[in-house]
């Protein structure tokens, strides 16, 4: 479905991604585990095609189409979108309007904004008319970001740490939302630090030094991450002078 072939990226003279190869399967939840600075968010930006992350080596295929040269809008129109780790805030734009923007290009059976809010645990009557601005807490904003993706019914949802900044009691709700994406046929690329969240995935990949070290069963990959990567010395990354 999504396939990255030998993707490399340099930013400011520093190589951030190294010959990265990676693939997702239709409808799966695929976790990306990695310590801080290993390139997880950069990988998300590259897949989304954000400005500054387009000049890459290698290529990106989506449903067989080479999308390497496409911009963010074109990729979104093909069904690729993202929930940011720290979502933007919009003065004067209501939650209902924000959710409706994503829904414009969605499939006909995509849920309406009120349904989407209910799925992320927010009461539509209290939130649809509120502005997506600084009056929302960080946790509320992140839930609205997830609702926005639900309303878009994308083919590929990149979730960049949807569980960060969320209180412990709400983690179950976030996990349920992630499963909802998958049930609706959306492939989820789940970037997280939390092993217990990563383990809900069908498959997981461990990222270190800008490359994928291991892909497979999420519990096994989480164990690998815990044993090899949390105190990362890049010992697993030969390109960085470590040992394989």
């Amino acid at each position, binding site marked *: 479905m999504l396939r990255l072939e030998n993707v490399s990226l340099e930013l400011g003279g520093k190589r951030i991604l190294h010959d990265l190869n990676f693939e997702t399967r239709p409808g799966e939840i695929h976790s990306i585990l990695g310590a801080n600075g290993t390139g997880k968010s950069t990988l998300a930006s590259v897949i*989304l095609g*954000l*400005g500054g992350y387009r000049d890459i080596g290698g290529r990106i295929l989506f449903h067989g189409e080479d999308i390497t040269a496409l*911009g*963010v*809008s074109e990729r*979104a*129109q093909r069904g690729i*979108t*993202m929930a*940011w780790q720290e*979502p*933007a*805030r*919009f*003065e*004067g*734009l209501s939650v209902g309007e924000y959710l409706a*923007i*994503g829904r*414009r*290009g969605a499939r006909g059976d995509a849920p309406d904004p009120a349904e989407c809010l209910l799925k992320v645990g927010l009461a539509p009557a209290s939130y649809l008319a509120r502005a997506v601005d600084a009056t929302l807490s960080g946790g509320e904003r992140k839930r609205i970001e997830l609702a*926005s993706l639900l309303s*878009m019914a994308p083919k590929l949802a990149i979730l960049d740490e949807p569980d960060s900044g969320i209180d412990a009691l709400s983690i179950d709700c976030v996990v349920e939302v992630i499963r909802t994406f998958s049930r609706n046929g959306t492939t989820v690329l789940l970037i997280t630090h939390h092993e217990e969240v990563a383990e809900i995935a069908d498959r997981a990949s461990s990222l270190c030094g800008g490359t994928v070290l291991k892909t497979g069963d999420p519990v096994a990959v989480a164990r690998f991450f815990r044993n090899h990567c949390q105190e990362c010395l890049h010992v697993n990354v030969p390109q960085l002078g470590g040992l394989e």
Partner: protein
Amino acid sequence: MTTGRSEQLEALAAAYEAGGGHAATLFDRSSASLSVSGNAVIGSNEIPGVHIEGTALPNGVRAIITVDPGAVVPRPVHLCFGVVPEEGVQEIVSEYRIGDGARVAFVAHCTFPNALRVRHVMNARMHIGKRAEMTYSETHFHGDRGGAEVLPALKVFLDEGGVLKNEFRLTRGTVGRLQAEYDAEVGRDAVCEFYAKVYGKMEDRIVVRESIFLNGENARGLAKSRIVSSDRCQSEVIGEVVGNAPFSRGHIDCVEILKGAHARASAVPRLVVVDDRAKLTHEAAIGSVDKKQVETLMARGLGEDEAVDVVVRGMLR
């Protein structure tokens, strides 16, 4: 004469609609209203608690609007000031006397839909009594030709516990030249909020100056500006808050967005603390539309131009 006024009122009502107003409100006898075209008062309606005196001046109108103490005005008072021809001068000298404990909202429309050479000067004074609350929302429409010169000046006096929320909005059509000057003297426990939202295009020139003097203990002031300058528009926002009294609080919040390589913007915040128990703050941001906002909307499928437009329109609401 009656026919002439009727025709003028019709033309003004059409201009009012063009500027985003609902003309029916000007004819609604249950709402207080005042309609001025050029230098003629062509419609005026009083209701219990609200008194309107309008007299012609050589180039405009003097209006005195009085709200009785304790009056709670159930519907907004509608004001319409317009110059329908392509050329003209209109000077409005207005005074608002809001009695102690009164509560009233004004919705004003200033409309110059055909302006090629129209000069509109507004000199307004507002006196808001003790614990009175007033909101004043003024929307301008200057047409598409950039031919308006608009010079509103407002002087506000807020007595103890009085509240004013004043909004100036010019987001449709062109601006022409705008020089808005607002001053407020804020008494004990009183609150003054100034909001300005302007979208400049072509060769428009925009200057917004807001000064709030916090003179009474626990007085509050906010000057919030949202300006978008596109094409070759130039904008300047000068915000000033002076903390003269203990425990007074003031804040300046200015965002100016530039669209295009030739637009220019500047912001000058000035905070003066006279009483060391006052606290004043400011924030200002000038530049292009926030990249993350635009990319977020693009990731929902919008094109870049449309995403910028959504951000800008939201900010100017």
